[in-house]
């Protein structure tokens, strides 16, 4: 990667209970230069039949990314800042292994491009010391990008968690999810 101003003290904090489904993040995401102006963020209804609650999902940038491990073409890489980059366009063979294996349901396969695309934390912005597009526009701060001190001050009853249990698998990530104070992990069963 070229010389960057990536600010390692800044982190991503997601709080889906705050998501109001306005999709401002989707619009902002499609402004990101590194996505080729495609929105990579996911906003979807959790269970439309029983609730209007929506959820928002960015790439969690796993410490040991399953997507990169299952990629048969070595198209997905993690950089020195822990950002897991979208598929290398020359290498990706469009098999969708990453799409189906990601425990967070993040990568998207664009059928016309025959290419997987995913959030790379607005690398054009974060590498220049700026915040990701989605976090700058979220009106409820369900998506927040800043320091741990800032989030601790703003959300005194929350704890950022970056450890997720999927059955027998424990996945740790660069991105945090805000949980009730004192939580250490989020169990998905």
């Amino acid at each position, binding site marked *: *990667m*070229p010389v960057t101003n990536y600010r390692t003290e800044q982190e991503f904090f997601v709080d*889906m*209970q705050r998501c109001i489904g306005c999709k401002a993040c989707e619009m902002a995401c499609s402004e*990101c*230069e*590194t996505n*080729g102006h495609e929105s990579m963020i*996911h906003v*979807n209804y*959790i*269970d439309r039949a029983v609730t209007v*609650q929506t*959820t928002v999902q960015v790439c969690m940038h796993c410490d040991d990314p*399953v997507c990169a*491990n*299952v*990629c*048969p*073409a*070595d198209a997905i890489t993690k950089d020195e800042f822990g950002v897991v980059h979208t598929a290398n*366009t*020359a*290498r990706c*063979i*469009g*098999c*969708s*292994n990453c*799409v*189906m*294996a*990601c*425990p*967070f*349901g993040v*990568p*998207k396969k664009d059928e016309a*491009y*025959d*290419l997987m695309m995913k959030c790379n934390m607005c*690398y*054009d912005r974060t*590498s220049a010391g700026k915040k990701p597009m989605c976090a700058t526009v979220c009106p409820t701060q369900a998506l927040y990008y800043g320091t741990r001190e800032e989030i601790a001050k*703003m*959300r005194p*009853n*929350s704890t950022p968690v970056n450890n*997720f249990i*999927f*059955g*027998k*698998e424990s996945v740790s990530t660069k991105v945090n999810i805000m*949980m*009730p*104070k004192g*939580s250490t992990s*989020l*169990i*998905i069963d």
Partner: protein
Amino acid sequence: MDMSLNKKALFIATGVSLLLISFVFYGSRKLQNFDPALIIYLFGTVFAFFGIVYRYTVWLQRPPTWMYFKRTFQFFFTGKIFLHVISFAKEFIQNIGFQKFIYPRGRSRWIGHFLMATGCTMAFCVTFPLTFGWINFTMNPATSINPSRVHMYEAHFFGFKMFEFALGSFVAFVIFKALYWCSWLVIAGVLIFMRRRLTNAGLVATQTFEGDLLPLILLLAIAVTGLGLSYGYEYMKGIAYDYMAVTHAITVIMFLIWIPFGKFFHIIQRPAQIGAHIYKKEGIKRGMAVCPHTHQEFATQLHINDLKIVTKELGFDFTLEDGTSHLDLSPEGKRSRLAMAHLKARQQNGGNLFG
């Protein structure tokens, strides 16, 4: 990164390289038709061949790659692959020949890539057989001794005469200048891509010099010095010939030995895309997986079952308490289950919104 030597890959790459050398020896009629001026290119090509086979073999041994490779052979031996021969041929022309999938990503991007790919492929078809001594040209002796007759040139392949053509004819012009056309195609394609890489903010942020810009510079250097070789003696009395010859050889050999390690390896990987399409088509025939959360079909059951095997081989186990797998969920189902788990944690903590 694993830097240890892969013995299996070393064995296969050595064997295949020796086979190539024997083909060069016998294909050039025991070096009779081999052009010694190209010896340095031959060394570069054999080394590149060794590297490509080594890297390819290492690549195939990765669990996800091996799964696709294994399935392809299983379809083949159960006769299923024959059902896909027509679509394979169609896709090969569309996706390898014309790189159709790049067009939706951007028209100028496709034009640039198509020009580079066509120029390089044509150049490979000309230079590899020439370097191996499989193609050679001779003067027809019957016409060469008579100054009043049109001189005829003969083209040979593996030492067998294929056809002849008159010197100075249009055919001679096209054949002798084949690499000119390749060079101009490559130069046009490289310039389109260089403009893109220097002006697209997203690419500027994520590209690397050695991974993305150097390959373009290398292709440009090969094409320009290649043209310089010919135009140098045609229009500059050969003044720059030595410089062009040495620079051309260095850049070509750098390109060749770098194929297995850098950007150009995608040329070797790309046909796997067709394999992935056949895998999907075959999977659709066998049945689709239905997400337990959204109750919608989202992938082939074959794919999901194989991914469960592959992830376990890679050290990930997404088996849930009830014996099902987290991988049984569609991407949307997974996102929803995560949000539901978050809600459950909140409910266990009194149920109120927390901030």
